[in-house]
């Protein structure tokens, strides 16, 4: 059930200049949250920020009844969020959207994140591990200091890193990563045939969140290699509830609301070329 309430800020961390990690809690038990779902935050005392701001659920700490949000400062609204203090409250409408595919035991899922798009993948990696699936993490950033929460990611699966400037992991974009090359070499030149794939790495699915050009490149790679792939979109939103029809994405079924039918879509549903 969706709710709209004030959550209490129990930690404000600044992993680097451009990001803030907010940890929120409530006197009541937080509702069940599915990885990839998001919240709509009301930004108080910021006259320039009229509408709520959509932010993915980064992590849920069930033991501490905490919900984490990892936010990159890009404008006025996120700047205000970065200035919040311990003990402040945040009015949050949540949980919204559908989230990533539910994993099953034995699944090998490659999670690819770019920039702040890594945020929802942390909770997803946790949920996949909980059901007995194996998450592999491929995280890309401009440079080493954009790559956050790596230690926590490592608790849930193998982590591969690319940076554009080569300051950490492999140099280049996520699509240049050796984990993909490994997959590549094991399947080509004759594609198909699971036995062949098993020699390298084979994935049941790729789940991806990041800047649109990155997601498009990953989607293209997945199509070429016949791997199922889902992406999490960040269309501009007004209501977050499927009521205003502002956030639509063109799909094979026509225009659909990203906030309600998504934000995660199978690339086969999208009309990306």
């Amino acid at each position, binding site marked *: 059930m969706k*709710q709209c309430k004030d959550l209490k800020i129990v930690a404000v961390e600044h992993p680097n200049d451009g990001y803030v990690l907010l940890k929120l809690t409530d006197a009541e038990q937080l509702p069940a949250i599915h990885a990839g779902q998001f919240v709509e935050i009301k930004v108080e005392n910021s006259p320039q920020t*009229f*509408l*709520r701001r959509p932010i993915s659920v980064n992590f849920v700490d069930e033991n501490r009844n905490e919900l984490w949000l990892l936010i990159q400062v890009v404008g006025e609204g996120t700047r205000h969020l970065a200035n919040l203090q311990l003990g402040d409250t945040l009015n949050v409408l949540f949980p919204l959207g559908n989230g990533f595919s539910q994993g099953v035991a034995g699944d090998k899922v490659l999670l690819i994140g770019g920039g702040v798009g890594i945020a929802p993948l942390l909770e997803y990696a946790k949920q996949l591990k909980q059901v007995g699936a194996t998450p592999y993490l491929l995280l890309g950033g401009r440079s080493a200091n954009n790559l956050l929460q790596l230690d926590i990611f490592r608790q849930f699966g193998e982590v591969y890193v690319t940076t554009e400037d080569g300051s950490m992991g492999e140099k280049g974009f996520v699509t240049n990563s050796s984990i993909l090359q490994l997959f590549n070499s094991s399947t080509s030149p004759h594609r198909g045939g699971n036995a062949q794939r098993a020699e390298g790495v084979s994935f049941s699915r790729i789940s991806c969140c990041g800047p649109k050009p990155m997601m498009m490149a990953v989607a293209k790679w997945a199509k070429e290699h016949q791997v199922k792939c889902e992406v999490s979109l960040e269309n*501009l939103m007004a209501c977050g*509830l499927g*009521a*205003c029809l*502002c956030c639509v994405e063109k799909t094979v079924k026509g*225009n659909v609301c990203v906030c309600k039918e998504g934000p995660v879509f199978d690339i086969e549903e999208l009309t990306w070329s």
Partner: protein
Amino acid sequence: MADIRTTIAGLQMVNPVMTASGTFGYGLEFADLVDLSQIGGIIMKGTTLNPREGNDYPRMAETACGMLNCVGLQNKGVDYFCGHIYPQVKDIPSNMIVNVSGSSPEDYAACAARINELDKIPAIELNISCPNVKQGGMAFGVTTEGASQVVRAVREAYDKTLIVKLSPNVTSIADIARSVEDAGADAVSLINTLMGMAIDIEKRKPRLSINTGGLSGPAVKPVAVRCVWQVAKAVKIPVIGLGGIMNAEDAIEFFMAGASAIEIGTGNFIDPAISVKVAQGISDWLDRHHYESIHDIVGII
């Protein structure tokens, strides 16, 4: 406690607060978040005779104290509404009102005739003021001839409460209001969005896919209050006021300007329970100022 029950052209409402078309879905989207029985009326999404895909993304741009939209009446058509949505909304304990749009008087009338058959829909709101579709929509709402032509056609096909929603994008909104009153409207609601535009200067491109869109939110409130005041002086039928209402004080302004009821649109995006809070706030304000009924302040300016 002050009496805020209201009757508008035969529609009995628990309070004078309704939710505006295009901002509250079919009500269902908000069911977890607000007690729908405590809303005077729910005006559902714009519905047309045939399905419409709406405009391309981006359809929304946030602006100072408001937003622009160019959704363009995306909906699955009146048949889908009757077959699939009506069964889900017919038992919602509020006045469930359909907002009807079209591109010719015949379209409007045919759509209204279908809705007329639905027992649990006590009223329609005729949208002759949508700025976001190429043909029709606002084209009818900006001339007295166009407006009365559509209203006359619908009046023949529809015998329940007929509300006509007016555009502020006109020279004299009072003239348009008089013409729809003469053509048989039972009430008028105003304002629809104000035509606007915003440009992304870095991309050197308009921020909306079709360049222009409708402005809503607190930015339009003074224009809306002025329109309501002018129209309330010009017609005898009830006036429903909307445009930028975010709290009870805003609503009171509209009542004083001559509105008998109000609608809340964009405010639902900021607080999904705003309608019920505003209704409570109106009642509290009346109590604090020793009014017994909402009617005591309607049109006092």
